[in-house]
């Protein structure tokens, strides 16, 4: 069943009426807290106040923050689940990795190279593919996340390469939150289970947290792909080849101003889509990604507001793909092809912040990253033959500065500039400026201009397994972006924001196919996007929280003059959360609509709307939280556009599914 336009309209009308009903302009009467003791005050749960909604206006960028509380209430399963609820974001899943599109821009098969992912400020994009891992491949458990901050737009002026469309910074929980033992278990559709254990302890001078999790899903037992509907390919049924498993470990120890954090995650995914022209329905075709790091940081504020932060880190990233091809000598046999990436790097950074003029905050920072290994290897097993053995090393050194100036009580200016020197590619600079004007109470106007860049990675430059061709002369791609935003509070509990943006990319690193059937990455495309986003956020005195957004954008490939592929014109989002029993029960809903998308091959992928609901019962018997989620409640049949790796028209997504989670904690909050 395809979702008709009428039923979409009906969905949107219902959603909007629920939303409007959910927003109240009134303020609740204030109960008397003034007689409460200090201890009692400290134990009261507060909800985000109107000031928080107001101060959105002060951020020198479009920022969204998702808290642990929201993650729990909405029963989100992955970071990708969270990102798809945000205004103008869309996530596609090719049954290997999740890809994020922002403001109309997502290239097929680009491994999220234009999104920067950080964990506690530590860069998680690897040094081979630059990939930001967002689905189950993310090497950190969602339960460990305290909050996620998402900044839209280019922020290369602070972060350098990859920060083109969004920066996602995951902040992990500290020992003040995980105190004692936390255990949780989940069961879900597609024979999925997960277990997690965490232990946190505050000793005299040392805080400690360790955590480990294991996730396993057999995946969809049968997926039908009409493109393979032939007797020799199991009549198009990919049977038991969608499995997924993930193990993670996390530890942090902190004392005074020092924090040592280590993380490791390894995830193995069966590939049901016959990607890279492998044999259809073969359980041997699979990919494993592992990433681990150790990160030591020091943060101190000296009296007189002089902030110092420093960090040193070591990362290791490994990928192993096994791809089953039919043997050329004997078609009945398979010939496994093994694809490896081995990345190791270390780095250090230092940042100083102080006030220079009295009404400003100046930040100076420097960073050095040394890529010890950026190796790619590929060979066939039968007969054994080495196809690629590429070893690389490189380094990057960068300097940045930023000044936040409070010009007067209603005008603030934010200026930033960063320069990156690369040993292996052209060096790049990125400036950024934001002006924030608050002419009235509850009104903020922002103008932001930024440039950003992405340097080509070693995969794009040197991966040369036929039909891929290397291109060592790739240059960095660049984007310029301008945004104008207007935030308006109608009351302290109801806010509207409108933002208009224009992005222009040039020298885009794009995979091109030639007439001879080979693939090569080239600095070719020029892309231009213009769009507008509307968002409303409200809070009602009975506790109902709601937010809704609609974005309309137009992206054009300037060389062909045609609309950009993988780019939906319209996106709409809705999230609701209603507390049902005081302090205990919460019902949540999130819904996403994505407009029609054209694939890179020119096919069309239908619009869809998906609704997810969740119920959370918190503090059952003081130690237990139970939550359940129903995903794709109305069992909408929908598909995502494919990446260049697969020969499918579109990639079918999961129908209705369930999850049940039980979490127990030894401490009582």
């Amino acid at each position, binding site marked *: 069943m395809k979702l008709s336009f009428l039923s979409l309209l009906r969905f949107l009308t219902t959603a909007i009426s629920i939303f409007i009903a959910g927003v109240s302009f009134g303020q609740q009467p204030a109960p008397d807290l003034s007689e409460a003791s200090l201890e009692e005050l400290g134990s009261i749960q507060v909800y985000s*106040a*109107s000031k928080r909604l107001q101060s959105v206006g002060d951020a020198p*960028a479009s*920022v*969204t923050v998702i808290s642990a509380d929201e993650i729990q209430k909405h029963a989100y399963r992955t970071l990708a689940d969270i990102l798809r609820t945000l205004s103008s974001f869309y996530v596609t899943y090719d049954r290997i990795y999740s890809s994020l599109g922002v403001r109309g821009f997502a290239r097929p098969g680009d491994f999220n190279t234009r999104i920067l992912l950080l964990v506690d400020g530590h860069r998680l994009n690897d040094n081979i593919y630059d990939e930001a891992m967002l689905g189950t491949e993310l090497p950190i458990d969602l339960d460990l996340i305290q909050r996620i901050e998402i900044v839209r737009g280019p922020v290369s002026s602070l972060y350098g390469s990859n920060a083109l469309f969004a920066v996602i*910074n995951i902040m992990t929980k500290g020992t003040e939150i995980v105190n004692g033992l936390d255990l949780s278990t989940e069961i879900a559709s597609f024979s999925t289970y997960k277990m997690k254990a965490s232990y946190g302890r505050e000793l005299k001078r040392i805080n400690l947290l360790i955590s480990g999790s294991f996730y396993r899903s057999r995946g969809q037992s049968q997926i039908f792909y009409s493109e393979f509907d032939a007797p020799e390919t199991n009549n198009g049924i990919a049977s038991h080849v969608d499995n997924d498993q993930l193990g993670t470990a996390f530890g942090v120890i902190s004392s005074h101003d020092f924090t040592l954090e280590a993380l490791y995650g390894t995830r193995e995914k069966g590939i049901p889509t016959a990607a890279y022209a492998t044999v259809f329905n073969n359980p041997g075709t699979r990919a494993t990604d592992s990433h681990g790091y150790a990160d030591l940081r020091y943060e101190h504020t000296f009296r*007189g507001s002089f902030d110092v932060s420093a960090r040193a880190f070591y990362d290791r990233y490994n990928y192993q793909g096994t791809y089953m091809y039919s043997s050329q000598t004997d078609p009945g046999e398979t010939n496994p092809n093994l694809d490896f990436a081995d990345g190791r790097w270390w780095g250090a950074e230092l940042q100083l912040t102080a006030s220079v003029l009295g009404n400003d905050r100046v930040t100076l920072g420097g960073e050095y990253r040394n890529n010890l290994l950026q190796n790619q290897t590929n060979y066939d097993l039968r007969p054994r033959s080495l196809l690629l053995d590429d070893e690389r090393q490189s380094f990057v050194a960068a300097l940045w500065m930023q000044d936040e100036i409070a010009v007067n009580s209603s005008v603030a200016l934010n200026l930033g500039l960063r320069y990156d020197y690369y040993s292996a590619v052209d060096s790049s600079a990125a400036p950024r400026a934001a002006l924030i004007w608050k002419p009235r109470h509850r009104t903020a106007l922002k103008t932001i201009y930024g440039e950003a860049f992405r340097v080509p990675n070693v995969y794009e430059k040197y991966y040369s397994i036929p039909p891929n061709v290397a291109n060592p002369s790739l240059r960095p791609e660049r984007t310029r972006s301008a945004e104008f935003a207007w935030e308006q509070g109608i009351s302290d509990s109801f806010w509207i924001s409108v933002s208009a943006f224009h992005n222009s990319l040039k020298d885009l690193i794009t995979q091109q196919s030639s007439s001879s059937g080979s693939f090569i990455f080239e600095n070719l495309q020029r892309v231009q996007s213009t769009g507008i986003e509307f968002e409303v956020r409200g809070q009602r005195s009975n506790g109902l929280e709601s937010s809704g957004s609609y974005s309309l954008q137009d992206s054009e490939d300037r060389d062909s003059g045609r609309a950009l592929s993988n780019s939906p014109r319209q996106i709409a989002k809705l999230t609701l959360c209603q507390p049902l029993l005081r302090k205990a029960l919460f019902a949540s809903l999130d819904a996403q609509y994505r407009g029609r998308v054209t694939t890179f091959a020119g096919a069309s992928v239908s619009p869809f709307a998906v609704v997810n609901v969740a119920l959370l019962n918190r503090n059952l018997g003081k130690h237990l939280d139970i939550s359940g989620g129903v995903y794709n409640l109305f069992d909408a049949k929908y598909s995502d556009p494919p990446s260049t790796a697969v020969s499918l028209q579109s990639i079918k997504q999961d129908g209705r599914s369930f999850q049940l989670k039980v979490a127990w904690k030894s401490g009582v909050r």
Partner: protein
Amino acid sequence: MTAPRPSRARRVLLGLALSLLHREPSRAQRFDEEQVKAAYVYNFAKFAEWPATAFTAANDPIRMCVLNDQPFQSQLMRTIKDKRIGDRVVLAVSIQNPEQARHCHLLFINSTHNVEVIRLFASLQGSSVLTVGETASFVDRGGIISFVTQEGQVHFQVNHKAATESGIRLSSRLLSVARRVIE
């Protein structure tokens, strides 16, 4: 009392953005963060002792000032309505610029003024103003008390040294409840 983990904001841009949240936790029990903070502010005044020079008469009011934050000032006014501390009436006063702060006994500075606090503290040198801020770094920079919100609960930290230097005595009870005390 253990030290909380240092703030994780890596860069100032985010650091600024953090306190300016779009979507923040909403919590079960229906209390506005501002209500709780206002109740705390009143409590801070109860557990503080100003030097005699801070008042001209025994029944002088305690002036609790709020810098450029009308909603909080209104909330504070509701909280302290008809309240007295000892013989003194308590007032919630709205001020527009830091220069007016010298006549305050307590000054609440919300997180949007983070950039200005250093200048503000300099202008308060030598006066006995109990400064109350909203971010963890506020006390590190010389503020006396700052709120920290963790898991939807509001706690506070105290810079005891700064209080003493301002001639303000804080009761041991206040110090014992604080999440962190800078001596």
